[in-house]
């Protein structure tokens, strides 16, 4: 490597920066919170309106914040509140929408080259993915058979979609997502779909595809099994 090139590459190491959240927390830990008096004359009505106005603006700005931004925790808090008021029927959809949201944020950061937000965004996405998968398992396990199968197909499809989008985002970073060690969600979904197929009358083509799915399950390749199932002849209305 030529000296000039080496020096140029050394300067690129300036991209290494700490996470914004950590920076703020550490500053607070060392120096304590800064209290700056804003009003010298306290007028209750005006103050209340100003506070409301500030809070409202904060919520609005927070909606566009990205992992690593100051207002991002507020955005997450609002999302958390929304999940408390959602019905059981809507919960699966919302759960997957959250994973989708995190992925969109990550994609936005990558597209706009916001290096300083990248680390927090990748962290957030991984955290959400883990939570979403846990949620999926809870949802399908507690449903009656017919509904479980329908949900399994829907949620399974969404999980595969998210996996594909994730791969694309990581590809733009010239890397791949970390190996999926936890495939409990995919396994649970595949089990439901296998049981359903076992209790159904299958065509010759479907029987062939079913053997392939069972093979994937046996070799613990649950994600691949699910992906295959969803594109196979089995993913049509099977006769009961």
């Amino acid at each position, binding site marked *: 490597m030529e000296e000039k090139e080496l020096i140029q*590459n050394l300067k690129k190491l300036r991209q290494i*920066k700490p996470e914004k959240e950590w920076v703020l927390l550490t500053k607070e830990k060392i120096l304590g919170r800064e209290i700056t008096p804003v009003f010298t004359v306290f007028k209750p009505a005006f103050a209340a309106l100003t506070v409301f106005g500030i809070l409202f603006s904060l919520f609005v700005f927070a909606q566009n914040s990205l992992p690593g931004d100051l207002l991002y925790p507020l955005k997450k808090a609002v999302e958390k509140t929304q999940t408390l008021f959602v019905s059981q029927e809507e919960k699966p959809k919302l759960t997957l929408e959250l994973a989708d949201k995190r992925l969109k944020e990550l994609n936005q950061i990558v597209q706009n080259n916001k290096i300083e937000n990248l680390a927090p965004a990748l962290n957030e996405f991984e955290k959400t993915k883990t939570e979403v998968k846990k949620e999926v398992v809870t949802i399908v396990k507690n449903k009656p058979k017919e509904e479980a199968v329908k949900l399994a197909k829907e949620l399974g499809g969404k999980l595969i979609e998210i996996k594909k989008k994730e791969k694309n985002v990581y590809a733009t970073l010239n890397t791949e997502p970390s190996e999926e060690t936890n495939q409990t969600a995919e396994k649970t979904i595949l089990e439901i779909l296998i049981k359903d197929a076992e209790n159904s009358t299958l065509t010759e083509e479907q029987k062939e595809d079913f053997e392939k799915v069972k093979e994937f399950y046996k070799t613990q390749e649950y994600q691949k099994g699910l992906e295959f199932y969803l594109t196979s002849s089995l993913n049509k209305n099977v006769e009961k």
Partner: protein
Amino acid sequence: MDKLRKTFGKIYDRYIDKIYRFVFLKVGSKEIAEDLTSETFLRGWETFKEKQKEIENVQAFLYQIAKNLVVDYYREKNKTQIVSAEALPIADPRQNLEEKIAQNLDLERIKKALNQLNDDYQNAIIWHYLEELPIKEIAQLLEKSEGATRVLISRALNALRENIQKV
């Protein structure tokens, strides 16, 4: 005290990235870099509170603390700072995301090669080429003359180039 706190707050904002980067490049782990950087500024603040007027160069002061903490860290862990690239602490890939930022293969090689240099060479390269500290400051930190520092920087870069060929 509030004024002191505000002043140090500005110092923190100004140098946190640089100190973190310096520590991270030497220890290779996000978690350890965060701990040591946090400790650097904590100690810095404790000294600043008592002896603000005695600190001539804040940046050098902070780098000195960071440098000593890294040395203590390795001493405590019973490691030498000249480690082979294979022996570098490999953080959880989901957490050591700074690694993911430097996706260019050349940067990975440079980081590994940098870690194979001795302490003075590493510091010289980081301070001169990354952080663009003046020679005078680097000389003070290295406790050498300016002339000797220039020579050291040149030798460090050559050593780095050699190491890159091997990585």
